[in-house]
């Protein structure tokens, strides 16, 4: 790390790769580098390594090994799940149901399919970001071929009632996909018990390498390929296998799902302390997302009258890495679609700060943030014409 203090609290954006994961990967670059499709010894070694990783992923999800397909990450998995099912089941129907708070990998894929003649329902959420199962059931038509609802939201951390939603999908005999990119390692998952037909994951969100992910596809699901070509991944996903990446994914998911409840206790208690103190110390601040049904490491708070990017810049200057739902960091002028979907006004959405805690964070990190953050908020508010107005006018809504 850099020489000055560095407190990384953006684990939902990406994680570092754990050293034991990197070590597991290394031999596959220079030594066991063979193409698993080949016949000779070093190729058989890479093939075995891929098989092992597949078993590790299957175990973490309660799936069978031959239901796991490796991809290049969460975005590819989402695209494949949705387009693949859409193209392959067009004759049955052309209606897809998803939510307003999905990741863009799902939303933009659905928008593309709308151009291709599919109809998409984007379910609303409540102020906590929760999807209502009865709304889902109401949206189903006899043309519905796919329901795609994320397991846990990347911005506000809200965990959706996946088991209930999956059961509804199954009852109506509709394929159920969940983007579990943020959920892996944070909540116990069992695709069989939860009636999940397709599930996306991405290694770099749980201390594995970037550029590798997986899609669980329940046996028998009709799905077209996204990447056509060679016979890899049982003819479903072409391309020479990213052996080192796949080995890293397998190792990482094994570590992160080994003991989910205990693992999260520490992260959650740090997050809870941070949250409680920030809401107490800083006036005109509010929690985004659900107070309990949320990812253990997710902190998302809006500070009124200020804008997120300038907050992040000051925090970065103090060595704290976070993110915001403000448009200004994404380059768009619209703030987070997720925060807006929960009913936040755009100006309050602009003032949101997301800190996502992970394995390397300590109690000292929390103390440090609790020291720095209020000062930053104060400094920016003093500069803000909205704060001025508001305090003068005595109201907090601008």
């Amino acid at each position, binding site marked *: 790390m850099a020489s000055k203090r560095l407190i990384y609290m953006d684990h*939902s*954006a*990406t994680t570092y790769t754990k050293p034991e994961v990197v070590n597991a990967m290394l031999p596959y670059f220079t030594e066991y580098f063979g193409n698993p499709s080949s016949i000779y010894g070093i190729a058989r070694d890479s093939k075995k390594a891929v098989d092992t990783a597949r078993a590790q992923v299957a175990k973490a999800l309660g799936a069978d090994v031959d239901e796991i397909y490796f991809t290049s990450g969460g975005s590819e998995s989402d695209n494949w799940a949705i387009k693949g099912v859409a193209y392959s089941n067009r004759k049955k129907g052309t209606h897809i149901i998803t939510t307003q708070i999905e990741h*863009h990998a799902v939303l*933009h894929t659905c928008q593309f399919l709308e151009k291709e003649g599919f109809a998409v329902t984007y379910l609303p959420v409540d102020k906590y970001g929760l999807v209502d199962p009865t709304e889902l059931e109401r949206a189903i038509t006899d043309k519905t071929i796919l329901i795609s609802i994320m397991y846990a939201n*990347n*911005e506000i951390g809200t965990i959706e009632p996946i088991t209930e939603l999956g059961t509804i999908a199954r009852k109506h005999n509709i394929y159920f996909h969940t983007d579990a990119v943020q959920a892996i390692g944070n909540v116990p998952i069992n695709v069989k018990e939860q009636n999940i037909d397709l599930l996306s994951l991405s290694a770099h969100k749980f201390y594995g390498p970037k550029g590798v992910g997986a899609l669980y596809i329940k046996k028998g699901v009709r799905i077209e390929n996204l990447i056509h070509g060679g016979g890899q991944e049982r003819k479903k996903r072409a391309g020479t296998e990213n052996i080192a990446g796949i080995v890293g994914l397998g190792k990482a998911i094994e570590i992160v799902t080994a003991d989910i409840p205990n693992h999260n206790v520490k992260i959650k208690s740090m997050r809870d302390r941070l949250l409680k103190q920030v809401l107490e110390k800083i006036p005109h601040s509010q929690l985004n997302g659900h107070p309990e049904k949320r990812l253990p490491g997710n902190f998302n708070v809006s500070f009124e*009258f*200020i*804008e997120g*990017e*300038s907050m992040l*810049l*000051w925090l970065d*200057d103090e060595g704290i890495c976070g*993110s915001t*739902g*403000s*448009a*200004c*960091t*994404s*380059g*768009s*002028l*619209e*703030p*987070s*679609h997720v925060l807006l979907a929960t009913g936040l006004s*755009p*100006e309050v959405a*602009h003032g949101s700060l997301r800190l996502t805690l992970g394995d390397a964070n300590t109690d000292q990190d929390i103390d440090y943030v609790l020291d720095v953050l209020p000062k930053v908020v104060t400094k920016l508010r*003093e*500069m*803000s*014409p*909205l*704060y*001025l107005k508001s305090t003068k006018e005595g109201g907090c809504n*601008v």
Partner: protein
Amino acid sequence: MYSDKVMEHFKNPRNVGEIDNPDGVGEVGNPVCGDIMKIFLKIENNIIVDAKFKTFGCGAAIASSSMATELVKGKTLEEAWEVSNRAVAEALEGLPPIKMHCSVLAEEGIHKAINDYRNKQGLSPWEEKHPHSHDHSKDLECQD
């Protein structure tokens, strides 16, 4: 992503605050879009003798406010009117393309404050040479 100059002005913004009984005030931007700038001018003998700002916005918005107020101080109103968004951006040693609208806001804020002064003086407002609009086209997306 920001130049050193932008960061320097962001971290040590000049002229933050308000002017009591200002001669001209301009407020531009929209909280919905994540930036509001309020410019305060003190004008004596057609010369801007003081300029202050309050800004709700990103790093570029704050730095642009800081730089714009610096640039107009000591100038005649005619000279100050000619301080373009490009001049602000150049003085900041460049802005990322998606942040150029922040310098536009600063130019507009100054213009609005000057015309506010002219209005109060019973003079007709000057016309914007290049009418700007808050640019919504460069719509990039959340990426994680």
